[in-house]
């Protein structure tokens, strides 16, 4: 008998799944203790289709090549003081939000994919998840290295891990990832692999990366580009996972649908921070949040769910509500941060006339009617020396942890309140979506570490705002408050004046 030479696919199978074996000295259920309690049924792991075929030698080679190029750019950026080529000093606040709010979640993704990369019983997805774990470590580390240079000059960056564990608005992304990390391996793969990396990823990374490109942040653009090929692998893994689960057993459908609904809504709430960044924080605008939502969710997501309909999967619950909210969410979030600017580690400002006109144009249905008058009033108050601060601590939604400032669907003048009772206590929510999530897992969400509750309970350094800022390690008068009058602004203006003089 002469055996045939292997094709590429079979060769890759030998290089990965062929390594695995059914244990006999220890029961498989003890070796893989976590992949049954969620109720997902897998008939045959061998039907898993590898979403990409990358052996480690190729992985090292590609990734090393990308890293050499990326670090060459980062070195040049620092050497040439690339930060002075930004569109405006205000832009740096985007970078602050990124490092404090997103990079720590890259780290969580790294550890979470290590969990999936050890504990999924199928060897194919395990290998793919391990590579993603490596990639996500790359992302957090390259982001720290990129933003390290900004930290040398700008405030609000230097305490990013400390703040991430404490500051009120950072508990929004942190609780999102804590939720995924504390779920079972299958929910994790749907939450992060599918919902985050596939369905919503373009709404996160495109705004930041094209925002960087439009605003002269060449170092962030470079890591964004450099991460693209990682992200396309992550997307193929995410889509493969959901299809595989749905193909394996009909009983998986209701479980997966519940997760898709949950993680879509959680993702939508978290992306509200990105919406605000896009519409308010970029000195040079890329597109409005509403436009991004229409392209990346309504259109791209729409065809994705058409494709998934053959498995019986439906468009996530409340997708229509989220789409309607795309007209409001960035404005409502910016209003929150403007009022609580004293407690945030980035700067705020009221849009100038040109910016207001841009918002009016991009949001013809809502901006002039509901938001522009308020912005103009607040700008006037600033002029009169009565800048508006809200010193009362807000109530937070128990699920998404955002202050309760969102309005009723269809009624932008009434704040939405929902509540549930559990074990004798009342829990508050910003929306039906957040209430449903709580009601689905009340034991889990009753545990939420809510920053405002914690302040009231004395767990955050003391009862006054300065006590809490101290506990955040938030440098009062530098990290917080308006951009105008900040040390960031002063430094930026010095550089610009100096550059003009030197050029003249």
């Amino acid at each position, binding site marked *: 008998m002469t*055996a045939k*030479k*292997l094709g590429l696919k079979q060769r890759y199978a030998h*290089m990965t799944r*062929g*390594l695995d*074996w059914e*244990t*006999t*000295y*220890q029961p498989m259920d*003890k*070796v893989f203790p976590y992949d049954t*309690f969620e109720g997902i049924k897998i008939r045959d792991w061998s039907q898993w289709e590898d979403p990409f075929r990358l052996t*480690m*030698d190729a992985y*090292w*080679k590609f*990734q*090393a*090549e990308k*890293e050499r190029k990326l670090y060459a750019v980062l070195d040049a950026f620092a050497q040439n*003081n690339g930060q*002075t080529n930004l569109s405006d000093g205000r832009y740096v606040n985007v970078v602050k939000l990124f490092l404090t709010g997103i990079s720590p979640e890259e*780290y*969580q993704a790294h*550890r979470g994919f*290590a*969990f999936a*990369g*050890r504990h999924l019983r199928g060897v194919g997805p395990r290998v793919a998840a*391990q*590579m993603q*774990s*490596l990639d996500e*470590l790359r992302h*957090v580390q*390259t982001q*720290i*290295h990129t933003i390290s240079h900004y*930290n*040398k*000059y*700008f405030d609000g960056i*230097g*305490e990013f*891990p*400390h703040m991430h*564990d*404490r500051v009120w608005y950072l*508990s929004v992304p942190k609780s999102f990832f804590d*939720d995924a990390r*504390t779920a079972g391996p299958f929910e994790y793969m749907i939450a992060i692999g599918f919902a985050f990396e596939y369905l919503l990823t373009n709404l996160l990374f495109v705004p930041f990366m094209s925002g960087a490109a439009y605003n002269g942040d060449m170092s962030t653009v470079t890591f964004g580009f450099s991460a693209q090929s990682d992200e396309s692998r992550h997307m193929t893994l995410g889509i493969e996972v959901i299809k595989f689960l749905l193909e394996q057993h009909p009983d998986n459908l209701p479980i997966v649908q519940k997760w898709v609904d949950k993680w879509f809504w959680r993702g939508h709430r978290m992306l509200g921070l990105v919406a605000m960044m896009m519409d308010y924080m970029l000195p040079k605008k890329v597109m409005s949040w509403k436009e991004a939502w229409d392209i990346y969710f309504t259109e791209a997501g729409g065809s994705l769910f058409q494709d998934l309909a053959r498995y019986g999967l439906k468009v996530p619950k409340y997708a229509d509500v989220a789409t309607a909210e795309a007209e409001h969410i960035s404005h409502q979030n910016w209003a929150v941060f403007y009022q609580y600017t004293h407690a945030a580690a980035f700067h705020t400002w009221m849009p100038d006339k040109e910016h207001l006109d841009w918002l009016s144009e991009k949001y013809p249905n809502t901006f002039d009617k509901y938001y522009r008058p308020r912005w103009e009033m607040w700008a006037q108050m600033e002029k009169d020396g009565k800048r508006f601060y809200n010193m009362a601590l807000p109530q937070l939604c128990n699920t998404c942890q955002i202050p309760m400032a969102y309005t009723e669907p269809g009624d932008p003048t009434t704040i939405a309140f929902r509540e549930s009772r559990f074990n004798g206590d009342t829990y508050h929510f910003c929306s039906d979506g957040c209430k449903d999530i709580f009601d689905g897992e009340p034991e*889990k969400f009753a545990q939420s*570490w809510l920053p405002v509750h*914690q302040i009231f309970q004395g767990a955050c350094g003391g009862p006054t705002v300065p006590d809490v800022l101290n506990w955040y390690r938030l440098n009062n008068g530098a990290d917080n408050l308006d951009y105008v009058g900040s040390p960031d602004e002063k430094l930026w203006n010095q550089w610009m004046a*100096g*550059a003009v*003089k*030197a050029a003249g």
Partner: protein
Amino acid sequence: MTVQIKTLDYEPKRHTFGHIARRFGDKPASRYQEATLDVQATANFHYKPLYEPEFWQYDQNKTAVKMADWYKPLDPRQYYYATYNIARANMNQAVERSFAFVEERGLLDKLAAAARANLQRGLLPLRHLHWGANMNMTEICQRGYGTAVTAPCIFSSGDHLGMAQIVSRIGLALDGQTGASLDAAKAVWMTDPAWQGVRKLIEDTFVERDWFQLYVAQTLAVNGVIFDLAYKLSDAAWADGATTVAMLTEFMSDWRAEESRWSDSVIKTVAAESPDNKALTSRWAKHWIDRAVEAAKPLSAALLGDNGAAAEAAGEATRARAATLGLTL
């Protein structure tokens, strides 16, 4: 018009992040330090894991050893993602050259039947052991505490997958790229009595819940006894193929010398923290080294006809290594 950028003031306000400055003062920090120190979340977690509600997802109680600061056991190689990948890409260039050299000259085809049989039985099943090691290092990465220890673990897990693939390539070179040798090696791994001690050993590590005990079991005992036996002490088994095998497994020798600098120093630092840590790590080391030696004896007897002497020698070397790390066995 010349822009005299030099006239502008670019004096930094601070040289590094606050958490790094609190450790070393505000001075320029290395990329390793900034990419590693205090990167993992430590406080105010929201929910207990559904799969393990007795712990937080990052929890110092997942091992019995205690550290005042889990950022003390650092990596002497100072690896972060970029430097790790660049180092491995460089090592892999040598692998490519060796495979090309061996294949061009048909060195494996010319081997005597006895050497081929021993490679089939003694070397190729190692790919499964590397895969087991990969599972363990991935587990320590997900379960461990502090980026200083856990980040190099995912590097190590990538290394083991890579080495499993190099071993697989040796098999494919031997069998004319058909995969027949790999199927045969799997049967050896599953049923050959020479390997069952090793397979039982690694399967038992899969269910170890204390992640630092698992670290000691894997990096000290499995790497020190089984992998060193296979890659350092088995030349006689490969007979006329010894030089060829040495070329094709050069990556493994380089990796072992390099990774043990890190893994040894982590164990040394953790053991030196307190008498309790020293007692625990010593007990774990003794337990797993003894087990590894017992597991390796039938293998060395089968390959080298030495009645297990090479396994004993690997065990002795590992015990001596443990002693230099401050452990008392």
